[in-house]
């Protein structure tokens, strides 16, 4: 599974960055970047996102 950011919904608030237990997320140039090597797919950020812009999907 990989964490995907829906750019149509994301407001670049970095709320997900603030809660990630692995520092896998970074707001850079107003876009949330996911470091797949650090992401543990714990989904904490998905539950936190105020606008529901994150989801785990199969890497297809």
């Amino acid at each position, binding site marked *: 599974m990989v964490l995907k950011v829906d750019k149509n919904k994301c407001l670049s608030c970095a*709320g997900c960055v603030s809660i990630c*237990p692995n*520092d896998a997320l970074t707001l850079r140039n107003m876009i949330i970047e996911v470091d797949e090597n650090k992401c543990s797919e714990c989904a904490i950020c998905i539950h*936190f996102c*105020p606008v*529901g812009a994150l989801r785990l999907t199969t890497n297809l």
Partner: protein
Amino acid sequence: MDEEYDIIIVGGGPAGTLTAKMCAAKGLKVLVLEKKPEIGAPKRCAEGIGHLDLLRAGYTGKERFIAQTIDGAIVYVPNGAPIELPKQPGGGYILERKVFDKFLAYDAAKAGAKIYTKAEVFDLLWSGGKIAGAKVLYNGEQKDIYSKIIIAADGVESKIPRIAGLPSRNTPRTIESGYQYEMANIDIKDPHKIHTYLGNEIAPRGYIWIFPKGSHIANVGIGINGSDGKTAKYYLDKWISSKPGIKKGSIIEENSGGIPIGGFLESMTTDNFLTIGDAAHQVNPIHGGGLAETSFSAEIAAKVIIDAIKLKDTSNKTLDRYNKLWWEKRGNNLKKTEKILHVLEKVKDSDINLAQSSFHGQDILDLTGGKTHKLIKILINNPKLATLIKYLK
């Protein structure tokens, strides 16, 4: 960008620029690095600040970043009954944060600080096992910059304190999920008061706010904690759809963000390093206000830093005075406020409604101010709530 400064500040939000202004004004060579292309935007804030807090930050309340003057606050319990809070000295304001943050930056620059945008600190520099500077990505180019002290004012998305070795990480218990619309053409009962709405039904473990920026304009927002699978946006949209006077309005801006509600750091310093603002969780856990806290902690930090540079001793032993002063002045009460929040979260909507007639506006102020004895009094006087006292331990 020079190669060496007295102080590098990571983050151009209020915590960074206010500390920068105070240090530069005393002749220190200060560099502020902000990764976004614009200071102040996008806003992640309901923009409320108290008069005394604004004075502490060095302003009068007459500047053009004031959108609205505020003379009071009303808290609505779940059944809609209002509780009016006592007026605060000088009242307060709803700011235009984009302009306010710019003013802070103008004034830091005027005091002599150098500020760069599009400058991201992505790592720290070390020398002899101690922090010695910052690794910066400036317009895509990498630079090493040295300084005697690094201040992490990198806000809610902060990572730099953890690189420095401080346990600053948030958990779902220490941060709320916030969402807000700035709305125009809405009906506001009293546009010189802030209005907050309580209830687990409408805002689980949080609240909804209307912070007026004019007679028909306001920030209408929500903060919630924990998750039942529904987003902050879901709860706010649902509430607005039940309020015809708000629903009829237009949305002119959408904001979201994390709001720290506890998890204070025993130590916010290490050799040549300290952290401040949202990065250090310096926010009131009950109402989520961070600007007032920043006005206190910037003053404390600047004082300690100026002395440390003068003494030529920026070790943790010297910087530890910042921890001591902050805990004395703010931390001990904020920690109590966090405990009170954890008890209040357990109160059912129906019990708030029942208890409402027995408490006053002053009680709410006391609870947000960390007065645990006031909570105990309220709990004891309401038999249905008395068992909650055990959570205060």
